[in-house]
């Protein structure tokens, strides 16, 4: 089945980012298709490669990036939520006159239309948040 995921909470905030990650892993293992994972509100903080959790802790962003690579996941960060929280890709950094970008591998920045499309194209939209 084609599923889409909405993540509204940042990593290490409570448990929603972990739950979403575990859910996506289990769904992929069962052979389901993940049409898109959309990160909204504080969820965009999942997409910064500048976070450095302690070495003996899980690195949620790296896990998303790995999954994106191994399963060709489409990880989309909401542009307005990202700009408020300082998540930038190369283009946005240039456009806003910032000195660097911090988007993690496998993530891309786009608009809310991507969430609407994810809801329409997938058979289920599963929401994780706080």
């Amino acid at each position, binding site marked *: *089945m084609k*599923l889409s995921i909405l993540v*509204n909470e940042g990593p290490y905030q*409570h*448990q*929603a980012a972990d*739950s979403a990650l*575990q*859910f996506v*892993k*289990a*769904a992929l*293992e*069962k052979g*389901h298709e993940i049409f898109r994972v959309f990160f909204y509100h504080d969820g965009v903080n999942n997409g910064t490669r500048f976070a450095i959790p302690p070495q003996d802790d899980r690195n949620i962003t790296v896990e998303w990036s790995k999954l994106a690579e191994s399963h060709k996941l489409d990880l989309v960060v909401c542009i307005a939520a990202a700009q408020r929280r300082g998540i930038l890709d190369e283009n946005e950094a240039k456009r806003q006159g910032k000195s660097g970008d911090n988007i993690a591998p496998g993530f891309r920045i786009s608009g809310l239309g991507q969430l609407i499309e994810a809801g329409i194209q997938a058979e*289920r*939209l*599963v*929401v*994780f*948040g*706080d």
Partner: protein
Amino acid sequence: MAMLHTVNKSPFEKRSLDGALSHAVNGAAILMIEDGIYGALKGTAVSSKIEKALETLKVYVLGPDLKARGMTEDQVVDGVKVVDYAGFVDLVTEYDKVQAWL
């Protein structure tokens, strides 16, 4: 058109479980995850709500989240089924829609 309602807050902290229970119609299912698992425990002030819900609804709790909080399956209200993440995925596909009560 049966719906799966997920609840991720403790009923002793927030009203998400009440929200889910008051909107769930016959044949729907409730899945308690994260801190929501406290709603599934026996002998609490909300146990009777779950016992009543079981008359018309299916009620599930996420096993790994129970375990993460030091709870065991035998502490769960009778009739509540424990599922793992694979079971969570199955519930999402079995029910027509998923509503998260955050």
